[in-house]
């Protein structure tokens, strides 16, 4: 349970999940901000106006998945690091997951990375498709990772490379 463990449960995830049709059309944001807090930068970050203006700053964000282009700007802007973009059209078996990442060193495109679930369990390997870290993202990189289709609801992080390096006692390959 989220308030006991920090892990979102299926009812929470239900609220973030775009509908089936939209998911089949390409990248779309999953806003996993499940508890009301006073915060609204996601609205300002969206260039296409898909994230509604907040009438009360404590409201949960409200997104129009149809309007969302899956650009990922909100992923970098969310102070809670709670927004992800998922593209389930990447291939038959693989999806593309964009996640916020604030660790150093950053992986490079093509690197194999360890996937982590919401509960911090390792869930196999993914491959970095693209790394976005422009100045405008202010040190929150957005990493696009290729992951298995069946893990789109589970994987929400990649293991920081420095941890991998420590464990292997070696250098980044």
């Amino acid at each position, binding site marked *: 349970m989220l308030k006991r463990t920090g892990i979102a449960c299926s009812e929470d995830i239900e609220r973030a999940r775009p509908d089936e049709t939209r998911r089949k059309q390409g990248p779309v944001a999953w806003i996993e901000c499940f508890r009301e807090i006073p915060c609204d930068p996601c609205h300002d970050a969206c260039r296409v106006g898909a994230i509604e203006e907040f009438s009360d700053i404590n409201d949960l964000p409200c997104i129009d998945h149809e309007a969302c282009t899956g650009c990922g700007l909100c992923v970098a802007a969310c102070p809670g690091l709670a927004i992800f973009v998922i593209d389930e059209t990447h291939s038959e078996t693989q999806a593309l997951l964009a996640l916020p990442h*604030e*660790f*150093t*060193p950053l992986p490079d495109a093509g690197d194999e990375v360890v996937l982590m679930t919401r509960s911090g369990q390792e869930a196999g390997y993914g491959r970095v498709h693209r790394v976005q870290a422009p100045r405008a993202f202010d*040190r929150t990189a957005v990493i696009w990772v290729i992951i298995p289709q069946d893990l789109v609801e589970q994987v929400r992080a990649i293991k920081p490379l*420095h941890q991998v390096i420590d464990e292997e006692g070696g250098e980044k390959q």
Partner: protein
Amino acid sequence: MSEYRIQQHPILQFSLGRRVKFYFEGEALEGREGEPVAAALHAAGVKVLKYSAERERPRGFFCAIGNCSACLMRVDGRANVRTCLEPLREGMWIERQQGKGDLDA
């Protein structure tokens, strides 16, 4: 290189002072000029900064902002220096203080 010093950080860049030599209990150590003495000691792996006056329990870095008295040490002969605030200088002579500190020595 100290295992305690952060070499790379995703958000921060540390502007450290030049490397300086200082002495802790007579032993030469290296730190960065201007950083607090207690931070330099910590980076050098020294965690016990003093012993409590009555029961002689070890004391270490605790509040980091000069509020508590856990880091009081003897610096260049001065007792009760708050080492979490005191900037490190070349050649400083740092000692663990015994008891409440002696003002005359």
